[in-house]
C-alpha cells in the first residue's frame, strides 16, 4: 500500500519538475502571456459555465454552497497561506496561533467600522458625532494592517528568542488568548454576542448597496482575488530580495546566518510582522464579507487548518501553499459526504505528508534538498536518535 503511494508520488514528482522546467524554458513574453491567461481564468471562475467543467462548481451538488462564496473563502485562505508561508516556509518559525492575527484583522474592521461596536459608540459620545458615524472601510483596512503588524511584533519580541518548538506552543497560547479576550472583554468586543453591521467597501450592509451586497458573492471574490494577486506579487519580490535570502539563511542555519552578518532576530521579527499583516488582511476581508463576527469563529482548530494548508501544499513554495489552501477549503464544500470527516482527513493528511513527503505536494526545491540531506546524514550515522 505504502509502496503504491510512493510510486504514484514519484510519477507526480517527475510530472511537476517537468512542468517547472518547461515553464522556465519559455521566453519572457510567453511567460507573461501564460500568466495573463491564468489571471483571466481566475477572474472568470465565479461565472464558470463551460459544459464539462460545471461539475467543479459547489452548487452543482444538492445543498451545495454558493459557488462564488466558496471561491471567496478559498481566496482569503490563500491569503492566509501566503502570509503563514512567510513565517513557516521562509523563516522556518512554526506559528500555531495564526488565527489570532486573522481575528485581530476581523475585529479591527468590526470595532472601528460598525455602528454597533462599543468602540465606535464611545468615539461618538466623546466627540459628539451623529449615531450613524463610523470609520470608513478603507481606513479600517489601514487600521487592520497596522494593528496586526503591531500585534505580530508584540508577540514576536519576547518569544522569538525561544527554541522553535517552544515558540510553536507559545503562539498556540497566543491564539487562544485572543479568542478568550474577544469572548470575555464584553465592554470592548460585545463578547459572545458578537458585532453586526460590519461595513464593506460601500459602507454598512444595506439593501441599497449596488455591488457589495450580502447575497451576491462575486464582487467579494473579485475583490479578494485582487488582493491575493497584489500580495503574491509583493511577497514574491520580498522573497527574492535581501530580506528573503536572509529568511532562508536563518531557516536553514541560524548560527551560520548570524556569523555571516544576518541578525536572525531582526529578520524573524520582520517575518512575523509581515505574516501577521497578511493574516490580518485576510481576517479583515472575512469580517467585512460576513458582516457579523463573534469569538466562536476563531477557534484553535482553524490555526491548525492554516498550518495544514502550508505543510500539505509545500512550505516555502507559494504555488504549493496556495494549492494547499484551495484544496483544503474547496474539497469539503464540493464533496459534502466528506465534510463531516474533514478534520479527520486534514489531520491524516498532515501526518501522512510529514511521514512520507515532508516537503509537501509542490515542494520548494531548496527545502526538499535540505530535507534529503538530513535523511542522508541519518543513514550515515544510524545510531543517532
Amino acid at each position, binding site marked *: 500500500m505504502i509502496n503504491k503511494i510512493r510510486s504514484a508520488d514519484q510519477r507526480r514528482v517527475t510530472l511537476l519538475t517537468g512542468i517547472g522546467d518547461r515553464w522556465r524554458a519559455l521566453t519572457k513574453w510567453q511567460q507573461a502571456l501564460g500568466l495573463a491567461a491564468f489571471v483571466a481564468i481566475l477572474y472568470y471562475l465565479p461565472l464558470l459555465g463551460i459544459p464539462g467543467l460545471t461539475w467543479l462548481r459547489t452548487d452543482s451538488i444538492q445543498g451545495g454552497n454558493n459557488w462564488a462564496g466558496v471561491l471567496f473563502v478559498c481566496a482569503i485562505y490563500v491569503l492566509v497561506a501566503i502570509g503563514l508561508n512567510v513565517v513557516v516556509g521562509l523563516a522556518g518559525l512554526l506559528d500555531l496561533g495564526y488565527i489570532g492575527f486573522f481575528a485581530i484583522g476581523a475585529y479591527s474592521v468590526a470595532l472601528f467600522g460598525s455602528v454597533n461596536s462599543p468602540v465606535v459608540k464611545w468615539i461618538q459620545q466623546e466627540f459628539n458625532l451623529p449615531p450613524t458615524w463610523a470609520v470608513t472601510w478603507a481606513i479600517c483596512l489601514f487600521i487592520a494592517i497596522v494593528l496586526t503588524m503591531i500585534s505580530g511584533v508584540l508577540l514576536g519580541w519576547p518569544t522569538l528568542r525561544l527554541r522553535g518548538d517552544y515558540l510553536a506552543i507559545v503562539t498556540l497560547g497566543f491564539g487562544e488568548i485572543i479568542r478568550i479576550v474577544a469572548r470575555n472583554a464584553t465592554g470592548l468586543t460585545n463578547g459572545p454576542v458578537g458585532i453586526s453591521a460590519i461595513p464593506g467597501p460601500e459602507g454598512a450592509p444595506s439593501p441599497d448597496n449596488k455591488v457589495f451586497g450580502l447575497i451576491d458573492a462575486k464582487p467579494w471574490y473579485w475583490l479578494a482575488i485582487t488582493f491575493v494577486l497584489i500580495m503574491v506579487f509583493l511577497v514574491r519580490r520580498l522573497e527574492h530580495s535581501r530580506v528573503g535570502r536572509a529568511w532562508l539563511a536563518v531557516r536553514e542555519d541560524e548560527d551560520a546566518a548570524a556569523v555571516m552578518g544576518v541578525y536572525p532576530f531582526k529578520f524573524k521579527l520582520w517575518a512575523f510582522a509581515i505574516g501577521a499583516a497578511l493574516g490580518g488582511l485576510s481576517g479583515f476581508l472575512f469580517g467585512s464579507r460576513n458582516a457579523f463576527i463573534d469569538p466562536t469563529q476563531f477557534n484553535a482548530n482553524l490555526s*491548525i487548518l492554516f498550518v495544514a494548508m502550508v505543510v500539505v501544499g509545500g512550505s516555502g513554495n507559494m504555488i504549493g501553499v496556495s494549492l494547499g489552501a484551495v484544496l483544503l477549503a474547496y474539497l469539503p464544500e464540493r464533496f459534502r459526504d466528506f465534510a*463531516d470527516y474533514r478534520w479527520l482527513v*486534514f489531520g491524516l493528511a*498532515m501526518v501522512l505528508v510529514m*511521514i512520507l513527503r515532508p516537503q509537501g505536494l509542490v515542494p520548494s526545491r531548496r527545502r526538499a534538498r535540505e530535507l534529503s540531506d538530513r535523511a542522508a546524514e541519518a543513514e550515515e550515522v544510524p*545510531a543517532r536518535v
Partner: protein
Amino acid sequence: MHFDELIGHLGQHTVDGLSKGAIYALIALGYTLVYGVLRLINFAHSEVFMVGTFAVLILWNQLGVENNPPVGQAILFLVLGLIVAAVASGGTALALERVAYRPLRRKNAPPLIFLITAIGLSLVFVELFGQVLPKLLGGVLPDVFGRPRQIVGMPTIIEQKTLFTIGNTGITNIQLIVFVAAVAMMALLDWFINRTRYGRGVRAVAQNPETAALMGVNQERVIMLIFVLGGIMAGAAALLWSMRFGFTQNSIGFVLGLKAFTAAVLGGIGNLRGALLGGLFLGIVEVYGATLFASNWEDVIAFVVLIVVLMFRPTGLLGESLGRARA
C-alpha cells in the same frame, strides 16, 4: 479584583489548586519523559489522556455502574478503571510512537516536522472519538457515543463530602484521594526511573544516546518504555479526572494538554520532580488567578504563566535534568 475573597479563603483556594494541579502533574510527566529522552514535544499526549477517559467511561458503562455504589464495589471499579485506562492510554502512546515518530526518527527529520505530525495526530484522535466512533458505535454504546462531539457524563463513584475542616478550609474526600493517588503514582515512577535497571537505561539514553548504545542499552526499547510510562501516567490522570469531574468529551485534551505542558515547562521539562512541582504550582496559580479576576479568565492565566516562564526562566524551576545538560 477580589482580594478579600482570595485572602479570606486562601487555605480553601490552595487546597482546590493542589488537587487540580495533581492531575496536571500526572499528565505533565508524559511530556517530560518523552522530552527528556527524545527532546520532542509529544503534542498528541493530550489525546492519550483523552483516550484514557473514554476507556474508563466505556468500562463503567459496560459494568453498569450506578451512582454512589457501596464502598467495596467503588474500590473495585476504581482499580479496574485504573487498569483499563492505563492499558488504553499506554497502548495509544505506544501506537503513536510506532506509527508516527519512529519513521520520522529514521529520517532524522527536523524537530518541527515531529511537532506538525504530532498536531496532525492529535486532530485525528479528536475526530476519531468525536465523529468516527460515534458513527460506528453509536448504536452499540449509545450512552457513550450516542451524540457526536458531546460532553458525556459518568456515574459518581464516590460521593463528595468534606472529610475535615481546618479553620475555614474544608478538605473533601475526593480532593484527598486525587492528591494522594497522584503523588503515589509519581513516587512510583520516580523510584522506577532512579532505582531500577530499566530506569537506568532511560537515564543513560537521555544523557547520551550514542554512549548508551555502546554500553548495550537498547535504544528503541527505552523509547517504547518512556512512551508507555507516560501513557500509564496519563491513564491514571484519566481515572482521577473521571472520578473527580465525572465527564469527558472528545476535545477535553486540548486545553488540559496545554496546561500540563505548561506545568512540565514550569518545573523544568525533562525533570520528573519538576513536573510535580510545576503541576501543583500551576494549579494553585490558576485557582488564585480565577478568584482574583473571574473564572472565565482561567485559561488565559495558564498561557500567560507559560509565556512568562519561557521568557525569564526557560529551564523551569528545577532545571532540565533527566537529559543531558543543555545550552
